[in-house]
């Protein structure tokens, strides 16, 4: 598929060119343009190399679903559907089982251990790992770590990626992808909530109808 021309954050936030928040975003035009370039670099790279688009979209859909953001689930689901439709249901099922509440996790710093908090530490079960394959299975376990308990990340987690065939370059790109998405989804969500608050007390942050309309327009 060709790279989407639309600004992805506007699309996910449901902001049109004439909306007041579009003008507010223009005050940070460099940030806006480079959030879009980050999307392009990580999700529509001209040379994906040894980290193929199907893997990038599978990770993106997993991240979107863990965040519970309908518009992003629809958008990244479409991207994955174009590239590797057989993975869509696998990712959706994995995200359902992997649902957790973050940030949580244990602190390594001795004086912070009183703040350590427990939660679901997920990794793919045998059937999911088989459906995802070794590389993507390791990437999903790492993605779950980064999304929900980044404070528990250790060198051993990178070794698990290396053992599953990930190169150092691709580990950096995977880390950027997941980390960038946690930014992109929050900016879009925050703008959506702000727009709804401006539109009036009856507006809801994310209605299914608005979501599917926005995705249809932008796809």
């Amino acid at each position, binding site marked *: 598929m060709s790279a989407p021309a639309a600004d992805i954050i506007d699309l996910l936030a449901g902001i049109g060119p004439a909306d007041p928040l579009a003008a507010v975003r223009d*005050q940070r035009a460099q*940030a806006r343009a*480079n959030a879009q370039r980050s999307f*392009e670099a990580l999700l529509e790279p001209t040379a994906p190399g040894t980290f193929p688009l199907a893997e990038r979209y599978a990770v993106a859909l997993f991240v979107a679903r863990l965040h519970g953001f309908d518009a992003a689930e629809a958008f990244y689901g479409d991207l994955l559907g174009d590239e590797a439709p057989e993975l869509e249901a696998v990712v959706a099922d994995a995200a359902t089982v992997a649902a957790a509440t973050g940030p949580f996790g244990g602190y390594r710093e001795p004086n912070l251990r009183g703040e350590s908090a427990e939660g679901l530490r997920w990794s793919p079960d045998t059937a999911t790992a088989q459906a995802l394959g070794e590389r993507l299975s390791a990437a999903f376990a790492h993605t779950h770590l980064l999304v*929900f308990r980044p*404070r528990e990340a250790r060198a051993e987690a*990178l070794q698990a990626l*290396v053992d599953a065939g990930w190169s150092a370059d691709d580990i*950096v790109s995977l880390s950027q992808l997941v980390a960038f998405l946690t930014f992109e989804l929050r900016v879009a969500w925050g703008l959506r909530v*702000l727009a709804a608050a401006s539109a009036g007390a009856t507006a809801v942050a994310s209605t299914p109808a608005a979501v599917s309309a926005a995705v249809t327009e932008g796809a």
Partner: protein
Amino acid sequence: MTEIVTSYPELARPEEFTQQGLGWVPWLLPVAEEDLTDLQRDALIEPARTKMPYFRLLARDPEALRARTLTDLDIFYNVSGGIGRAERELAAAATSRHNGCVFCASVHAASATRESGREADIQRLLDEGTDADLGDETWNAVVAASVALADTPLAFGAADIARLRAAGLDDAEIVDVIGGAAFFNWANRLMLSLGEPEVPGRRVTR
């Protein structure tokens, strides 16, 4: 042959959140300074960053690094309109405190102190956590919004916007808070997962 992943059994690690400067060591090999391509040097944006292992590690994906850095610089340093520098740094520090990034919190707590002169208030955020009363409602609202925005699944809502507005923020200022807080969800995850902080000057061995 060189191992791909480096670990540091004897590192002098911080014991808590601090405004003191910390170092950071990478778990993957950064691109060596002399091996940086023109594209990678360009992606670093600031020449001084060729000395910093974190940025030379991110240079393994130069397009992503370049876009990340230009996003960062505009959100935090473009002072035409919007909220003040101190409040942007506060949003970064509060997000880092909530996610548990001791390194990021040290850098941006110190920046918030420098921009505001309110070292004791910032230290209270680090010592007591994001529920600490920082002495005025604007700062408390910025911290609360940053914390709400960091939670997964996404739960930041109308009440967070209402509190920011009640504290006197307009839409451009709120967009800056959202941008600064959201950006540190990106930054925290990179700094926490590609290496770790160290207390400089008393490293034991490598």
